[in-house]
């Protein structure tokens, strides 16, 4: 029996079988291919709203009539002054009001005239994220007023305002556009990696535990085809499906960019054909290893349901890997590149940051994935006969 022919026959059959399972395919397609771009668009809408607020230069106040000097300052800063609604405190708590509120006491001008520091209240709720995001800007604005008044007093007394400042802070943000955007797009690798998992999972279960459950494994093993050829054919189909979904998922980000609501995010987020090709190249070995591992877990199970429950451990492990890099305060460490899934996340993030990747960075995970694939497929091949008769 020609092993290549058997391999090809099994590959074509399993692929055809999986592609005819339209309902499952549709669910996988929606969850893994459409999900990433959807989240990206939602995120950009959020960022867009923040940007819009910053551009709007609005300040919400209570009792500003008591402080004409402050009003004059704010108007000179081209801020639009809005009066807070009557129930502003309750609205802030319920997150219905999206701006912090500046409260001016009645004796503001009086205190200012007598050289006493008037107290300005800045009210926000740390549980109200929208309002909290504006606090920094308002504090800076009010500090500007404070400095201006102080400087005027010094000048009136014939003292240079520079006496008050012994040093100056020059801020330099050395992050380039790509790495700044990567902060926001850091979850992209997570979505494409989960796409691989979900793309391959059903086929992995169906070709192993599913065969046992249907009672079709025993007749299959009664053919003279070599066990290895059967297993490689099955794995090839599972791997192809995982990779197909990964490719679709990666490519779906390209058109999704045009839907980005935030202009600066759209300018920062550059996901073109080159990035997509890098992603696919990095994901391919992972898809190979994951397909083989899922089959190895599933072949021990009598039903697809049992296999699915057993595969949750693997799915969970994969889905927590990107979190390691997200929460890792030390930044990238060398061992990251040796752990499957974590290595791919790390490298995909580098692609997004436009950081250089050398072949030496890719080799560890490639090596581990190849070893895992071979080990898992050997295991499946050995278990096949044993499990068929159980």
């Amino acid at each position: 029996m020609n092993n290549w022919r058997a391999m090809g026959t099994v590959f074509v059959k399993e692929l055809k079988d999986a592609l005819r399972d339209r309902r499952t395919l549709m669910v996988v397609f929606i969850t893994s291919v459409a999900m990433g771009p959807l989240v990206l668009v939602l995120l950009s809408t959020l960022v867009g709203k923040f940007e819009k607020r910053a551009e709007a230069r609005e300040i919400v106040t209570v009792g500003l009539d008591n402080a004409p000097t402050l009003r004059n300052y704010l108007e000179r800063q081209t801020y639009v002054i809005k009066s807070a609604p009557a129930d502003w405190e309750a609205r802030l708590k319920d997150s219905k009001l999206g701006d912090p509120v500046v409260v001016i006491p009645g004796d503001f001008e009086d205190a200012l005239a007598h050289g006493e520091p008037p107290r300005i209240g800045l009210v926000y709720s740390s549980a109200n994220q929208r309002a909290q995001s504006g606090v920094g800007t308002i504090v800076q604005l009010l500090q500007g007023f404070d400095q201006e008044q102080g400087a005027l007093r010094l000048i009136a007394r014939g003292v240079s305002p520079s006496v008050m400042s012994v040093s100056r802070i020059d801020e330099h943000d050395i992050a380039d556009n790509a790495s700044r955007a990567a902060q926001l797009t850091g979850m992209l690798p997570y979505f494409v990696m989960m796409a691989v998992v979900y793309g391959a999972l059903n086929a992995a279960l169906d070709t192993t535990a599913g065969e046992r459950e249907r009672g079709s494994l025993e007749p299959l093993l009664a053919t003279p085809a070599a066990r290895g050829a059967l297993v490689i054919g099955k794995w090839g189909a599972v791997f192809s499906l995982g990779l197909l979904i990964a490719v679709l998922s990666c490519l779906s980000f390209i058109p999704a960019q045009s839907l980005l609501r935030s202009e600066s995010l759209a300018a920062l987020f550059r996901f073109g054909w080159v990035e997509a090709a890098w992603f696919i190249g990095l994901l391919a070995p992972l898809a190979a290893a994951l397909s083989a591992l899922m089959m190895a877990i599933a072949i021990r199970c009598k039903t697809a349901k049992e296999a699915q429950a057993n595969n949750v451990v693997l799915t969970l492990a994969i889905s927590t890997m990107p979190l390691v890099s997200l929460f890792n305060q030390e930044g990238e460490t060398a061992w990251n590149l040796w752990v499957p899934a974590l290595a791919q996340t790390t490298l995909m993030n580098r692609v997004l940051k436009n950081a250089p990747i050398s072949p030496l960075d890719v080799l560890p995970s490639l090596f581990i994935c190849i070893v895992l694939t071979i080990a898992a497929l050997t295991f499946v091949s050995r278990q096949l006969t044993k499990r068929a008769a159980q």
Partner: protein
Amino acid sequence: MIAMDDLRKQFTTGRGRSARTVMAVDGMTLHAQDGAITGLLGPNGAGKTTSLRMLVGLVTPDSGSIAVDGIDMRDDPQAVRARLGVLSDARGLYPRLTARENIVYHGRLHGVPDDEVQARCEHLARLLEMEALLDRRAEGFSQGERMKTALARALVHDPDNIVLDEPTNGLDVVATRALREALRVLRDETGKCIVFSTHIMQEVERLCDRVVVVSHGRHVADGTVASLCEQAGCTDFEDAFVRLAFGPEGTPQ
């Protein structure tokens, strides 16, 4: 020709203290000739399915030998499997494939050339009266339709030796008759060696040229239906079987 000699197999279930050893097959001998239907008759749990699984190579015997057309299983299991057409106890189909695709898949795995496999498929569909089924997906097939498809799948490579494990399970009278007729055609017109495992007396009486009676994993008697009746000293074949399988008292030992 199929020859199984003094096969033995024991299984261990459970682990540690709860481990139990079960002797599934304990001295099984069966010789099936070409151009004849050999019945493997035994009560439930007699070791029929395990014996047939050993024949296919799914279970490795602890001792004994298996040869098909003179080829020893231990020397070349793939060549043995290539000479066998097996309708096993598990006869699951792929529900999303059509009957034809199910049959052709196994044909290709048996190494049947592409140009021949379709012709074989059509031929078997005529023999088993299942032409109307060929291009329907297997999901929703009745028991009988499933069995016919599985049988066609087992015969697609035109094997010289056919092994059927309780093929009439779940079939109605019409389907059973059709199957019996198909097996007669295969024996008389093509001279196949057919082994047929069952626990139903009537099937054996109507179909088998020779019968091997097994009980508790052991070969207890063999011969034609008439010679077995004579051996047991009974006129009725059912009485003869019970006496041969369970002893003179007719109760399980």
